[in-house]
C-alpha cells in the first residue's frame, strides 16, 4: 500500500493544487448517490454536444465550455475518492511491533500446519494387511533363503537319527507287583 501514497499525493496536487481547489469541498453538502452525476452538468458540457452547439450556433456564448466547472467537478471526484478510499497501509496492523509480528507469524503458521495436517491425515492413513509393518516392501521382496531350508532339512534329519538312538535300558522289573496283603 505504501506505493499508493505518492501516486495519490501526486494526483491530489495535480488536480487540486494547481486548480485552486478548496479543501472544504466535502463540507458543501455534496451527498453522492447512484443517481448523482459524476460531472454535474454533463449534458451541456459533453464534448459531443459542445461540438454540435458550436457548429450550429457559433456565436452562442452559452455553449462555450466552462473550464472552471469541469475542474471543480474533477476536483470533487478526486476528493470523494479520497474520502471513500480505505488506506490499509495506515491501519493498525502496519504499526505492529516487530516482536508482535513474529508472534503472529508463528500463530498463523501453526494454525496453517494444523489445518494442513487435518487435510492430509485421511490420505496418509495406510491401508492393507501389512499396515503395521514399518517397511513392508522390504519383507515382500524377501525370498526364503535356501540356506535356511537346507539347514532345517539337515537338522531334522539329524534329530531323527538322534531320536532313533534313544533307548530305554530298563534295569528293574517293568511290572511291579503290588504287595497287597
Amino acid at each position, binding site marked *: 500500500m505504501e506505493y499508493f501514497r505518492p501516486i495519490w499525493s501526486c494526483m491530489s496536487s495535480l488536480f487540486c493544487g494547481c486548480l485552486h481547489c478548496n479543501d472544504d469541498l466535502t463540507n458543501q453538502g455534496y451527498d453522492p448517490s447512484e443517481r448523482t452525476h459524476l460531472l454535474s452538468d454533463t449534458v451541456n458540457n459533453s464534448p459531443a454536444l459542445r461540438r454540435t452547439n458550436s457548429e450550429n450556433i457559433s456565436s452562442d456564448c452559452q455553449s462555450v465550455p466552462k473550464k472552471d466547472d469541469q475542474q471543480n467537478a474533477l476536483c470533487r471526484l478526486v476528493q470523494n475518492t479520497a474520502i471513500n478510499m480505505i488506506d490499509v497501509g495506515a491501519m493498525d496492523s502496519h504499526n505492529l511491533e516487530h516482536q508482535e509480528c513474529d508472534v503472529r507469524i508463528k500463530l498463523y503458521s501453526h494454525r496453517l500446519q494444523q489445518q494442513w495436517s487435518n487435510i492430509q491425515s485421511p490420505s496418509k492413513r495406510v491401508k492393507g494387511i501389512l499396515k503395521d509393518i514399518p517397511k513392508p516392501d522390504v519383507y515382500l521382496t524377501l525370498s*526364503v533363503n535356501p540356506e*535356511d*531350508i537346507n*539347514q*532345517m532339512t539337515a537338522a*531334522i534329519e*539329524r*534329530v531323527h537319527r538322534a*531320536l532313533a538312538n*534313544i533307548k530305554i535300558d530298563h534295569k528293574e522289573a517293568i511290572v511291579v507287583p503290588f504287595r497287597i496283603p
Partner: protein
Amino acid sequence: MEQQLEKALNEINSQPDTVGCLITNRQGLCLGAAGKINPKMSGIGMALSEQACKLEPNLNPPTIVLYSGNKRCIIQKDGEITGVIYKESSSN
C-alpha cells in the same frame, strides 16, 4: 539316553546366525531345546506347522519362515516331529 539329541541340537545351534532351536513332538511337547529359545514355544511352532500343512495336504509339509526385523523363525514339520530354528542376521 538323550545325549545324542542334545548334541545334535547344540550342533544346530552353533551354525552361523543361529540363536536358538528346539524340537517338538506331535503333541507340541518340547523334546529338546538349545540356545536362546523359550521351550514353551514348542506348542505354537507345532500348531503353526499343522495349520500350514492343511493348505496343501497332499504335498510335503511346507517350511514356514517368519520375518521380524533382522530376525527370522524357521518352522518345519517332518513326520512326528517339528523343528523350530531362530536366526538373527547381523546385516539387513
